[in-house]
């Protein structure tokens, strides 16, 4: 029987399938960071257990670390303690850790692929919902809670119910100035934040095939914002080319064998998905969110929706609540709205190609007076490569801040945050109330849209500037 990419990976990782129970699923790669792991290690210690497969476990620190110069001390004692605890846990349990001073440190979902840990056909988990990112390589990757982190540390397995599959087919050529971020924002605006619940997305179609790996990662990354725990893209030559020669990718004869294996992974002709959604890339425009969840998105030229037009009471109330929080009038345009802060970075859009796009627009221009612009590379390696290309100079000469790698203002745990009432155009993934700082108001958009806002100080259609 023809199988989907998801089914092929699932079937080869089931260790046991007791009747009327979840499967015991084997995990090939377990990524760890400082925020969602400490309680799991405490519990392991209490049970007197070891990590079963340190060789399949990789740790970094990204969420609560400062992005200022590494020579400065960590001002927040709680963050400092959490970071110290990650070091203690990694050392005690014998785990590979990309620590504060590592040149390979970075956001967990940036360094996994960058170092070649992330590979097609793998099952990958992390105590972080944006683990969906790694699905861009044709792996089954999803976020887990801390109890599950402990389960994987102890057994290298998880109890999982088999999810349903949903094909997200994106055909057509993206118009100029419209990017991978706009595709995923358009999808989520269409299906809502719960639209993919219970499903794994597989992105197919000519627009996805035409993307480079970093663009595919941007799309897969935000699958969770549509409710799908995982998003996947079938591996192809683009995937293999990206991985070839990376530190932890197979080398030599093992590489050839791996590629032969990976070529068997794409969904078979005639494989059946539980559901299919289609999008026409050529019809898309730059997208931006106006509300307090990622499903509340519109075309950048569009108007803020009117609660009066919604019949269902709870949805109407949700929109009213969102607009009140955001300080927006129904029916008003977002274009031209003043922004206080622009954030370029995160596991969604903190990679080299994202920074190149933003820098390309900002080159030779100046950041608007009164607008604060933070550019935060996704990893120290991204930072190094961006500097080698002179992107840092473009940002700094424009008047932006060029920071060390980390999650930074995407989750606002490290001191990089909005003040109450401030507006931000952000390349991150969540616009929930308070996400970028208590009382802060987030417009999620692409790096191009963020760069345009940096220059004009307003929500701007970047197509007029590229």
């Amino acid at each position, binding site marked *: 029987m023809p199988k989907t990419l998801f089914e092929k990976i699932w079937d080869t990782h089931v*260790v*046991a399938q007791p009747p*009327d129970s*979840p499967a*015991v699923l*084997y995990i090939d790669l377990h990524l760890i960071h400082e*925020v*969602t792991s*400490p*309680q799991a290690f*405490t519990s392991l210690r209490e*049970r007197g257990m070891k990590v079963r497969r340190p060789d399949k476990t990789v740790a970094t620190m990204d*969420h*609560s670390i400062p992005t200022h110069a590494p020579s400065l001390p960590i001002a*927040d004692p*709680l*963050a400092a*303690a*959490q970071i110290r605890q990650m070091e203690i846990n990694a050392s005690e349990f014998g785990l590979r850790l990309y620590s504060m001073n590592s040149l390979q440190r970075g956001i967990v979902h940036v360094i996994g692929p960058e170092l070649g840990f992330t590979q097609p056909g793998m099952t990958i988990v992390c105590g*972080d*919902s944006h*683990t969906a990112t790694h699905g861009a390589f044709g792996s089954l990757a999803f*976020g*887990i*809670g*801390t*109890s*599950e982190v*402990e*389960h994987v540390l*102890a*057994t*290298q*397995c998880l*109890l999982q*119910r088999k*999810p349903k599959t949903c094909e997200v087919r994106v055909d057509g050529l993206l118009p100029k100035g419209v990017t991978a971020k706009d595709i995923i924002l358009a999808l989520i605006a269409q299906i809502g*934040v*719960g639209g993919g*619940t*219970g499903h794994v997305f597989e992105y197919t179609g000519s627009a996805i095939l035409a993307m480079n790996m970093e663009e595919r990662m941007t799309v897969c990354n935000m699958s*969770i914002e549509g*409710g799908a*725990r995982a998003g996947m893209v079938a591996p192809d030559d683009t995937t293999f080319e990206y991985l070839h020669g990376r530190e932890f990718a197979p080398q030599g004869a093992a590489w050839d064998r791996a590629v032969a294996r990976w070529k068997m992974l794409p969904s078979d002709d005639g494989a059946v998905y539980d559901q299919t959604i289609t999008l026409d890339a050529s019809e898309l425009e730059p997208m931006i969110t106006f509300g307090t*969840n990622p*499903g509340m998105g519109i075309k950048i030229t569009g108007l803020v929706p009117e609660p009066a037009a919604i019949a269902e009471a*709870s*949805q109407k*109330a*949700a929109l009213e*609540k969102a607009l009140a929080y955001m300080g927006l009038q129904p029916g008003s345009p977002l274009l031209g709205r003043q922004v206080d802060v622009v954030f370029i970075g995160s596991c969604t859009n903190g990679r080299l190609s994202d920074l190149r796009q933003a820098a390309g627009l900002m080159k030779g221009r100046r950041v608007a007076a009164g607008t604060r612009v933070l550019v935060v590379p996704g990893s120290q390696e991204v930072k190094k490569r961006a500097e080698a290309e002179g992107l840092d100079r473009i940002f700094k000469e424009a008047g932006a801040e060029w920071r060390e790698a980390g999650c930074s203002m995407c989750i*606002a*745990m490290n001191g990089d945050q909005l003040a*109450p009432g401030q507006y931000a155009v952000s390349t991150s993934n*969540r616009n*929930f*109330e*308070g*996400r970028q700082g*208590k009382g802060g108001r987030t417009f999620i958009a692409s790096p191009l849209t963020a760069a345009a806002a940096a220059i004009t100080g307003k929500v701007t259609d970047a197509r007029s500037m590229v």
Partner: protein
Amino acid sequence: MAQFTTLTSRMLPLVVNNIDTDQIIPARFLKATDKKGMGEALFADWRYNTDGSPNPDFALNQSIYQGAQILLAGDNFGCGSSREHAPWALTGFGFRAVISTSFADIFRNNALKNGLLPIEVDARMHRILFELNEETPGAEITVDLASQMIQLPGSRSASFAIDNFSKTCLLNGVDELGYILGFAEKIAEYEDKAAT
């Protein structure tokens, strides 16, 4: 894990759809390295005013709902991040069950591992429960997991779905890690096969 069998309690209503985990517990409270005190941070940005005083308009601060162990929430509860701090905050505060029309996948899994019962009801029963609470704020209902029933005052009741495995785990307080360790031999076999 704490067992869940039956529960009789008033409901605390939060008529908001898509309550995300950043609202359940904002990220700035995730710097702890233990699970202590999470209940204090539950719904912090809705529950407290800017000066730290309780927001009297928020249900958690209203005397009629004190002691409520059932949270009655809008559609699609728990979307967003994978933070298990969300169920830790809910149980830390004293909740043992959340009722909604749907739950985000990761939140549901995390809740079940902490003895917090996600009760999925249809839109009709969801409305009836909110109406009951409007008519009689603080009205008590009874949840019986074994029979998968909710009893409302009078003779009204509704059934809810839960998979058998999760039900058994909750009823008996099963430790999932202990359960997985029971497959140690199979895991070793799988690893041996993968290595060849």
